[in-house]
């Protein structure tokens, strides 16, 4: 398991990433290159989620089956979202 120091470092990183996401918008990147900024913001969200799941929820130290379990749910939700949205394009 991770140490308290590592937990604290992760907290700082998460805090910074959240700020960075708003900074992307506040600095006008969304207006200039919407889809690049969109990609950056979503990637940051995924990174934050990975770190929380990996360290705070300890998935990194658990049997892989738990990660696959959650990924299966995520895959199902993504399949629904992507296919449904594509069907009306």
């Amino acid at each position, binding site marked *: 398991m991770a140490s*308290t120091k590592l*937990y*604290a470092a992760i*907290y700082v990183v*998460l*805090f910074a990433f*959240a*700020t960075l*996401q*708003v900074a*992307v*918008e*506040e600095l006008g990147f*969304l207006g200039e290159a*919407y889809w690049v900024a*969109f990609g950056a*913001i*979503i990637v*940051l*969200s995924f990174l*934050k*989620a990975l770190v*929380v*799941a990996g360290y*705070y*929820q*300890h998935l990194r130290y*658990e*049997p892989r*089956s*738990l990660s696959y*379990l*959650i990924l*299966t*749910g*995520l895959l*199902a*939700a*993504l*399949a*629904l*979202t992507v*296919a*449904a*949205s*594509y*069907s*009306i*394009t």
Partner: protein
Amino acid sequence: MTTDGQPMNDSTGDDEAKTTDDGSRRTDGRHTKADGGHATTDSEFATPSGAGTDTEDGHGLPPLGSVRRYLVTTNHKDVGVLYIVTALFFLIFGGVLALLMRLQLWTAGQGLLSAGAYNQAVSIHGLIMVFWFLSPFAFGFANYIVPLQIGAKDLAFPRLNALSYWLYAASGLLLGVSFFQGASFAGGWTMYAPLDLPMYTPEVGSTTAILALLLFVVSITVSSVNFLTTMHRMRAEGLTLRRLPLFTWTILLTVWMMLFAFAALLAALMILSSDRLLGTTYFSFTEGGSLLWAHLFWFFGHPEVYIVFFPALGVMAETFQTFTGRRLVGRKWFIASMVLVALQSFGVWMHHMFLTSINLQVKTLFMATTIGISLPFDLMVFSLIYTMIKGRIRFVTPFLFTFGALVLFIVGGITGVFLGAVVLDYEFRGTYWVVAHFHYVMVGGVTALIGGLYYWYPKITGKMYDEFLGKVHFAAYFVGFNLLYFPMFLAWETPRRVFDYPPGLTPWHQLATIGAFVLGASFLLMFYNLTASLFTGEEAGDNPWAYSTTAEWTVPSPPPLENFPGIPSYRSGSIDFLAEDERSAIGSGTAADGGELTDGGVATVSDQATDHAPGHERITDEGEGEDHASIWPLAIGVGAFVLLLGASGFQGASFPDGFAGTFYAGLTGIGALLTGGSLFGLTRERFTGPSGPFGESWPFDGIENVKTGVWIFLASDVVLFGAFIGSYVFIRVAQGWVGWEPVPHDPLPGLVNTYLLLTSSFSVVLAMVAAEKGSKRGVVASLGLTIALGIGFLLNKGIEWQELFHEGLLLSTNVRTSTFFLTTGLHALHVIAGLVIAIYMLTRATRGAYLEDERPIEYFGLYWHFVDIVWLFLFPLFYIL
């Protein structure tokens, strides 16, 4: 060796065990066994009397036969019986509605029923049969049989199992009540938008029916978590997934599909309830509200076909093995095919939408995936047919029904392939071809389950049914079935869901109506047979079926309260019942005869087990075993019923004026108090469930039951939130992604809330660290901080919402505000639920809890971090992008 290379161990049973169901000798006269073995019990097998089936000492469980027992029981067998009996009641309910429809269709045009009543009969018949009859009927067997087959004393969470049942019963009652609130739902069982909106179905009863289905789905979710935890974590030693009995395999796959598919339906129903109660506009927005419903519904709806059918397939596989005396031919390929179908089932849903405006590319893709899903079924059908060819069939009632089910399923399957082709679907969609096809599939499944009822009736009751009446039932059923549904293929041009049709088709419809009454009457025979046999039937004995191979036949009929006379183990290749100290003394991977371990093995009771059974009883007698009774699941069910009945009166974001409004508001308040109080009572109750160590726990070895359950629940919650976010994405794509303005003008409140939640996640981690270090002050301070931050999050959100309301931006203003308020509102509800748990834990922590065992904090953290993760996506989607 069997034909597919598996060893067939001999039974230890004597010659008496070689007689078959009707007293004749075994049909193939050989000592080889289907599915690796033969289930027998030695005559000296002892029923544990201490926790017996009709005693008062089952840890507060009233004796068998008393009504009170069934109100408080948490034992899987009692709950199974409750499911079966209740589901059969709903079969009658749905069946009567079907007969009313068929009477109406005797001639074209209006007749017996008014137009509205006919629409209600069609809709509620479909809803009842699909939701309240079929799956619960199958899960009655699953409840009763699966723990016995896997060697578990009970499900992992017995009280949650009882809760699942009582929520199911409450939801069914709610559906029944809906008929007395103006009218019940009349928009078809698929509840297509916009027919599901108040504009078309304005009656309070329509809302009640939708809330009833929502409650049913909650029950299913609770049940799914419980079954998955049980089947993955609590299998007997040596019972690997490969050796799992086929019925249990089908239930395992069914429950996995249920976990994800019903989460999508839960999202759809929550959104629909919000549209009806709060005035959101998801399904009424003009750019695709109805398409959104269709996507959400059918993402659930197609897996639901297999959710309904797989348990029937399991019954077919079990009974084919037993009554042909042969192990299923190509068993592992049969299992692989089912796994494949379970996966593929989530990739075919848009074939239900070929007539909508989805694009041609996606239609073509889904046509291909639909044709693809029929292929594994071909293998399964041939496997069953070849098993019959290789074996020697005994035509007893259970087999007649399951064989009949195979025939009906083949017809249903072939006629379904037509609907998977886009061009043909343009012609057939919305006609009686579809009605005939899915009834051949779905009621084909019912046919197998009826076979299952006859098959396990002796085990459940200890009595044998009347074989002659059983066969007459089958004959009447099969004739009635085909007389009812086959003419629908011939009258396929009849439009679905309406009572008007071309007069030239009248003879076919009249034939179908006669068939419906024959089919209905056949059930009277069944009810008479099973009821009379309960009182006057012959004693069935422990195992009335020669060549049965699964563990339920090794225990008495009905089985004792805690199922087995020792700890079940398959390590020797057979099932043995061991004392605690013998668990590790079993062989290490080879059967006693030197052969390979088999799947399910030879089911016998060893002398050791008999010798040690009394010890097992003594443990139970001294009250050190599991509990089997709790009143709280029933109380929660009652509370949920009252709460949702009250909520049904909440239309357009307010209760109506006058007495009705007061009545519904009062019910809502009482229901909330009852539910909340009962949940609290549940948490305060001392209840001992099954505890490890268990045998096989792959793939969750080393992750204890509660933790496994929490993770499985979270996987379901991922799909729930995924469906909400997916709906938002779909609507935004429909309206033009880039032109969409976020509802909050300023991302700052959202950023502050992100900081608050991230900090609260960190403080939960600190609480766990403090608990590990044994610091009470640290635990209390960290949990207190978590609660303060959570409250801060809600306050900040409240202020933000208040400002938006003042600007005139309400849930009902437009689809932008609807998606914003509802999705972030659902998240806020999760935060509130987390806070309630955290406050409860804080009060316990102040008294020194969690210092010896920090796991509850860890499990709470799993949930709280998940809520945090969801916000990490909601924040950019709703505030920034």
